[in-house]
């Protein structure tokens, strides 16, 4: 192994989330196909050349350590703005931010954290008042307009109701239940994949040994 360039580019949270979701749905699709192929072969009378319980030759195994990366939960948690962002809105915001004198890192953090209040922007940008002055509010408006309306948007009201909602949000994050990626379990994909894991482990080993003697 050789590291050619430790940091060739910075990635926004949204990009990483999209990539991980793609990998996840790839994996789910693959297990679903594997399951179907297996069932069809069993129905055909088990005359196939494929070792029962072994992997299909046209399948590639997804390694377990990739599946243990739980970044999807973190990146799609309710306190992250990713659920309100789309690729188009991010591109638009980046272009709109270009006219201000911001560094790359500051722009990246504006995308990642989507500040909607002055105090959040103060944290991200150094010497905010000297550098930007009046345009600070313009940036906040730009960020606000880039976030699409969604049920979550109503959870960050500007004032009075802030306290009770914030408690609710913290509790939701505590639960660690699969609610953090609604796309995935909407159609029961998760069940499917667990089912496959079970059959794979239980029935696999004996079958393997049988065939090796041939």
């Amino acid at each position, binding site marked *: *192994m*050789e*590291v*050619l*360039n*430790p*940091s*060739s*580019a*910075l*990635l926004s*949270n949204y*990009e*990483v989330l999209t*990539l*991980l979701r793609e*990998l996840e749905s790839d994996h789910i699709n693959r297990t679903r196909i594997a399951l179907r192929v297996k069932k069809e072969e069993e129905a055909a009378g088990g005359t196939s050349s494929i070792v029962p319980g072994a*992997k*299909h*030759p*046209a*399948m*590639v*195994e*997804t*390694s377990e*350590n*990739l599946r*243990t*990366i*739980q*970044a999807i*939960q*973190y990146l799609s*948690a309710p*306190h*992250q703005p990713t659920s309100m962002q789309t690729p188009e809105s991010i591109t638009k915001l980046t272009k709109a931010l270009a006219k201000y004198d911001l560094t790359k*890192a500051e722009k990246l*953090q504006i995308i*990642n*954290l989507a500040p909607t*209040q*002055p*105090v*959040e922007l*103060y*944290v*991200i940008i150094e010497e905010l008042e000297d550098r930007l002055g009046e345009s600070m509010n313009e940036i906040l408006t730009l960020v606000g307009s880039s976030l699409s309306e969604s049920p979550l948007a109503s959870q*960050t*009201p500007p*004032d009075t109701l*802030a*306290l*009770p909602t*914030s*408690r609710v949000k*913290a*509790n939701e*994050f*505590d639960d660690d239940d699969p609610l953090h990626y609604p796309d995935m379990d909407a159609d029961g994909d998760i069940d499917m994949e667990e089912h496959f894991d079970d059959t794979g482990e239980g029935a696999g080993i004996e079958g393997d040994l049988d065939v090796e003697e041939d």
Partner: protein
Amino acid sequence: MYQLAILKETTAIHPANFGVPPEQAIIAELNKKYANRVLHGLGLCVCVFDLTEVGEGKVRYGDGCLWYKVIFRLVVFRPFVSEVILGKVKSSDEESIRLSLGFFDDIYIPAIYLPQPSTFDPNERAHFWLPESDLTKPHELLDTPTAERMYIDTGEILRVRVESDEFYDDEPGPPKALEGVQVEREARRAPYSIICSIAEQGLGPTAWWKGEPVPEGDEMMVGDTEEG
């Protein structure tokens, strides 16, 4: 938070995977090796982003594998210094607050990076901050009425600034003995840990700053302190 690193690697594809298109097999092989692993000086690897360059697969004497020389891009978790990130409080003790991101737990806020004056409350097992207070000694702070304290409870979402990060490569070894007595070995350090700060306006629990252009909001504290 996330970066792309370019790496070069020679990887072997087992004959069992020859039925798969080579790029898929190579990505799977690289993910098996790198995903969820800390590379020294680089950060926590998440997954392969894409393959930049793949040489021709070669069979070596001695095994049936196809060996590919690959240059690829890897998604790495490595927040840069001064970056602001969100995390959840995992636990607190006298010296520090430990944060978790779900996939990464070695994020610490040492007591010196808490807003001052603040101290650790052993009853609540949490640190608290007393805004606009002249007290400095821990025992004085612990005598104050609980209603004025702003606690940082376990499970709260914190906005923190990265101050520094550290990599350790501790080698496991046989137990050492000194004059016949086994020497207590230091506890294994995490290979990659991040030190953060919340001693700044706008940092700390996100609930502190909701709808509050000016810090020290009195009405916020009522909800933040619960009597056990």
